[in-house]
């Protein structure tokens, strides 16, 4: 794993993104983030859960106990309507910010 530090606030966004592809349990979320970032961003395993609970608490995620692929009881997370909306607004904001910062950084280089 190429370890890049997570920027503050990015974990929430990554979780929302990972879950936008379908309901998943905690470990599944971790694997999916690894997968979609191509292993470029390391998520501390334990840190995932406080973030998940926080998002549930904010009403962005829903939870349901179900059965995992190899028949174990697991807790599945899915996006709520509010979560979907937040993902969209956060993505927009992120893009705007990155654009602005990229512009700024390029200006400095010039």
């Amino acid at each position: 794993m190429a370890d890049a530090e997570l920027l503050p606030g990015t974990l929430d966004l990554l979780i929302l993104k990972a879950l936008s592809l379908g309901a998943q349990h905690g470990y599944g979320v971790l694997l999916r983030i690894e997968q979609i970032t191509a292993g470029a961003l390391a998520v501390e395993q334990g840190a995932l859960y406080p973030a998940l609970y926080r998002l549930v608490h904010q009403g962005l995620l829903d939870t349901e106990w179900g059965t995992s692929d190899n028949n174990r009881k697991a807790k599945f997370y899915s996006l709520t309507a509010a979560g979907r909306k937040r993902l969209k607004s956060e993505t927009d904001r992120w893009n705007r910010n990155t654009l602005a910062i990229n512009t700024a950084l390029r200006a400095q280089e010039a």
Partner: protein
Amino acid sequence: MAWLARLRSFWRTARRRSALEQEMSDELQFHLVRRAEDLADRRGISPGKAMRLARLEFGSIERYKEEVRDALGITRLDLLHLSRTIRRSPASAAAAVLTLALTVGVGASIFAVVDAVLLTPPPFANPSALVTLGETPVDQPAAVPRAVPDTTFAAWRERAGSLASLEAYDGTNLTLTRLGPAERVGAMDVTTGFLPLLGVTPALGRGFGVDDVGRPVAIVSDGFWRARMAGDPAVIGREIVLGGRVHTIVGVLPKQFSFSLNRSDIWRPLPTTPLRAARTGDRVRVIARLGGNVSPAILAAALDDVSRTASPPSRVVATSVATAIAGDATRTLELLMGAAALALLIAFTNLAGLLIVRSIDRRRELAVRSALGARHSEVARQLLMEAVVLVGMGTLGGVLLALWLTPMAGQLALEQFGGALNGQVAVSWRVIGLVAAVAFACACICGLLPAAGAARWSVVDVLRRGATPSARELILRRVFVVGEVALAFVLLVSMALLGRTLLDVLAVSPGFEAHGLLTFQLSLPVATYPGPERVVSFYSTLQNALQERLGSRSVSIVDELPLTVDRGRTVVSLRRLETGPEAVVRTASPGYFDVMRIPLVGGRSFGPEDNSAATPRVVISESLAGRLFASEQPIGRRIWLAAQAQMADVVGVVGDVKHRALDEALLPTVYLSALQAPSPSSIVIVRSARPDADVIAAVRAEAARLDGNLPVYRVRPMQDVVTVSPGVSSRRLLTAAFTASALVALVLSAIGVFGVAAHDVACRRAELALRMALGADSMRLLRATFGQGATLVGWGLAVGALLSIWAARALSGVVFTTAASDVLGVGLAAAVLMATGAGAVLPAALRAARTDPLVVLRNE
């Protein structure tokens, strides 16, 4: 019902919390299992190894759980936060809460008694202006002030003028008949101005008027009216029979009124001086209401010359009513409060120590949290919250315990302090308020000390030093342990001194053999037994009948038992109307000294021939013989008894007995023959080999055969009389209280020393290992650890020794201290604490000595 809603929401949170905890555990477990499976697949390692690796990767599960809880914002004011606190170190938290509950409970119960005895004013109008007046002989300034003759009262009243108004009362017991079974009731004969002086008006009927003096009228207490007359609204004008005489009820006193100096149910007008003049030796007690700006001392000084010319010459003693009511109870209660306060202090010290250790253990979490933006105030608040929760639980438990203990304490207080109770002994809001205030203040201190420490941490320090606590924290922790040891020392010394004194007092010979004696009180009403002949004939017949049933040398009769009262005194001299030593007067029937096993020193004891046909005869005690006759032979000499206004022949000399308390000086005694000077109220004493039940049945049966209306009451073994006598019972109580506190203190200080030693060794493992590796032997490490424990205990002993000086001063009224007993007490306490300290350090020391350098250094 806002509180109901709040309670429901609290309950919901509580249930949600436990569900949440379960959910978190399940979820994290699932995560670890899946991770382990993946690792096993990817790296081809064994499942066990994979699981270990998964755990290692994950890091501290507890820490993340903690962050989840934080994320949900449930830590802050959630009372269940405490469940974590407890789960982390359940034993020490439980011990802290338990000791707190115990000490708070006992403290609150004692305070409830203090409240009823010392802090509640007597139920009279403006009680601070009321004083009791009494006399003490000039040569015995420390004696208990006593009642005065009617003539003195009259002279005082005249002398007082506008300084104060004076009233008199005289307590007695009367037999109540024809209102259920015959029964003895407490009665007070009072001057007509007595109730108005206290500011009491009857709730029903009227008070006494001047015309009532000498007439058979009575005012009854509210309790008597409700219990004995079913609260009859038409009670005024009803008649009751007291002492064989019909009395008309003219009033009922208000419910809240009680005269604690002499509890009674019946109040009658006191006959004025001329009516009582015939009965020599009668005395009254005097109460006065001071005029404005008059102090008790001014009044006493104004009345003094009346008493100085009395026989024996006396001084006037004016005591505020509140003080008079509290009496001996004040000292005992203050000491009890002291023991309770020390125990409470130890419980809080223990808690503070615990919280410090816990804040040290949690420093990483707290430091990270404050680095992540939590302000110091939040961290402090969390530590404080923890203290408040622990203290809250302890206090709640304590109050519950107090609710359970207080009725017992009240019963004990009633037995111990009798009249001194001005109010109910109950867990009142006042008691709860005080307990809550003290507990909250202590919680703040206990919580803020570690919080203040936490405020100084910086993340850098914490991360650099890891779990090693700062020197400041270590010192603070040590200070608390030293405090515990010091308090334990003070309590142990106090316990030793008290216990020693109790044993000393119990070892004092009362002058008779209490074991195996049974006593029975009887009282003959004047109406049925008008003259001395009738009284003599009743008691002689009773004694003869009982001797026939129980054995000829096993029964006797006396007017008052030793170790109960020292009333009834006379001045004794060799010539008529001279002054001389004062002696307690007792009236004894034939066989008394034999049954009591009071040694006969010379002459003979009373026999049937010492009756009304003979000249007055007395038996005197050894100390009186010494005072009167020095080395001359007293037998056959004549002495003058001032109170009886007669000369009497000395026929015998007996050993002295203790009249009021075992720890008081011997009082000279003169015994009159019961056949010559009978007392209507007397006590039958029986020493028999038969079972108590048989003896009691026999006495009741014989008394009933002679007079069916006569109650036999206050049936008790003489041993009980000794046990409840003033010098013994309060010391027994105090010894018990200090022993209990000392044991709690000892256990807690042992836990404290153990904790510090164990923590030290754990923190210094690397250092110890290094030393071992460099060649230090285990004995040396053992000694070093012991040395540290000894330093802690040593400081505790030093501080404790200083505090003990103060404690010994506080106890000086109760304990007999000699240099020897002091040294013994201090030595004993020090030895016990050193042994306990050594025991507490031992496990840690052994661990230090067994340090395996290889294992430790590999782990570090």
